[in-house]
């Protein structure tokens, strides 16, 4: 194992310290160095154990559903706890549609914010105002988004639905996507802004000196350079959107069938758990909901790992 000079110095000093403490301060040290280091290791590994325990518990508690329903759980179109039919497809579709729609709506806005804060206005009053607003958006609790969505978006969407001739529920896939798109902007905008502001100025100045306009610099230099960070930010916000519970539960309309249009009410994986978990009687019913949680866990974990790989492997700066 290669040790740096600094590490050698530290361990040498530590050895002196140990010798000294043994001879003089033995009684004053509560913990020996060995047991203190062990304590540190245990706390570090506790995090790994916690995560493994979560995964194992989810698997163990969803076993009754996996055993009884098998793969049909994921492709079944009908969810009827009363007759004991559990097909999770409507919720998989609901989650996917709301999240992707939210991503589609939010991506332009978060890119705009990132370029605004990372390139056009790096400091100043306007920049502070926008940055503060985005940070505040990130801090607002999900349940408040949901309540606001009920009070503001639901009537607004109802008006749109009447205009286009859809059934005026107000609640539904579209309303949930709109709320979600606002909620996830801070996540993708934050990472994108960071990488955009890290683009070296020699690159930008080189392009400018060749006669490129600011917009050409942004499109041809900054965005390609920052693409890994932008993609990672998009993945991060996708992970948030997939698992978002309260706001979605409050405005999606809670219908357990496959949504026929984006105006129709539906349910996501998170919202079905929030709605039915406390009423779930029967082993298979409860296990089915835990299995949905397991799917959600695995998907978000994969997305997070992918984001991490993109940041470390694809980044231009090395």
């Amino acid at each position, binding site marked *: 194992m290669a040790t740096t000079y600094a590490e050698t110095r530290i361990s040498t000093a530590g050895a002196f310290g140990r010798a000294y403490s043994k001879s003089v301060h033995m009684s004053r040290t509560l913990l020996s160095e060995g047991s203190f280091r062990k304590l540190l290791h245990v706390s570090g590994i506790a995090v790994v154990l916690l995560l493994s325990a979560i995964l194992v518990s989810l698997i163990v508690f969803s076993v009754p559903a996996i055993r009884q329903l098998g793969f049909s759980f994921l492709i079944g179109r009908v969810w009827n706890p009363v007759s004991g039919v559990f097909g999770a497809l409507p919720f998989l579709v609901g989650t996917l549609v709301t999240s992707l729609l939210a991503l589609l709506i939010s991506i332009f806005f978060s890119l705009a914010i990132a370029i605004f804060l990372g390139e056009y206005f790096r400091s100043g009053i306007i920049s502070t105002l926008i940055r503060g607003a985005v940070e505040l958006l990130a801090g*607002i609790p999900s349940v408040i988004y949901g309540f606001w969505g009920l009070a503001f978006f639901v009537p607004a969407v109802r008006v749109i639905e009447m205009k286009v001739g859809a059934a005026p529920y107000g609640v539904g896939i579209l309303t949930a996507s709109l709320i979600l798109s606002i909620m996830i902007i801070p996540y993708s905008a934050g990472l994108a802004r960071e990488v955009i502001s890290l683009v070296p100025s020699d690159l930008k100045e080189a392009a400018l000196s060749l006669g490129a306009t600011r*917009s050409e610099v942004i499109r041809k230099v900054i965005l390609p350079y920052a693409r890994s960070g932008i993609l990672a930010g998009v993945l991060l916000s996708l992970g948030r959107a997939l698992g978002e519970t309260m706001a979605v539960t409050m405005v999606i309309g809670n219908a357990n069938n496959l949504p026929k249009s984006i105006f129709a009410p539906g349910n996501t994986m998170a919202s079905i758990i929030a709605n039915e978990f406390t009423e779930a009687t029967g082993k298979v019913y409860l296990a089915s909901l835990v299995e949905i949680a397991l799917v959600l866990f695995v998907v978000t974990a994969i997305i997070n790992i992918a984001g991490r790989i993109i940041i470390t492997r694809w980044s231009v700066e090395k």
Partner: protein
Amino acid sequence: MSEDRVQRRIVVDRFLKGLVVTLSFVVILPMFFILYFIVRNGISVIDWTFLTHLPKPMGEAGGGISNAIIGSTMLILVSCLISVPIGTFAGVYLSEYRKGRFPYFSRLSLEILQGIPSIVIGIIAYVWIVVPMGSFSALSGGIALGIMMLPVIVTSTEETLRLIPDTLKEASLALGVPYPRTILKVILPAGLSGIVTGIILGIARIAGETAPLLFTAFGSPFMNLNILKPVNSLPLLVFNYATSPYPEWHALAWGACFVLIVFILSLNIIARTVTRRWKVQF
């Protein structure tokens, strides 16, 4: 001909800038809308009675949210008791051992942990605590929130301690201070502002969480100080009242939103002041 192209490029340039500025300002509109809704609907119901009384049964006017305020405080205390010691030590571990297989897995786990949907954490606390103990409880809710808070504390502790120069540790060790004392009495105090900021931001993150509490703390219309019984919390109260059909309850929910948002904003402001004012410079 080339005059035209230059002209076109300038137009495109202005258009892009205009687009970026417009979209950016559109994003901050929802923030103003949300704050406007909360302040307009919430501030009128807030008075002393609202903060110190219990909720009234359906149909009776008045009533307050005191049980939710106490419940939220209990939940935050329990989650801090769990996550602050483990989180700080895990942060020290990651800053002390930067390379190697275990720290790598530790970091990876933290990142995954941070991304787990809060509802999944709720289910975990349910099967770990509520099922064996046989009842919904403040304890299980606090543990769920503690799991959510852990990554925030570890990350902020690690990042702060990494900034402390090695010379400080070497100086302490060279003076003969044992390693445990060096960490506890020299390194941790030097990074205290960053660690405290992390704890405050962690509290701000969990104070508004509802999903992990649905099947753990569960909610309750009564005042409860017993950690093994269900408690109400501000976000749970907002959820239950907001989804009810009664306008009186909606008004109470807006009031609770107002209290919650003021609390979270103050935490963010405090965290920022701590980092700015109380930072140890190296």
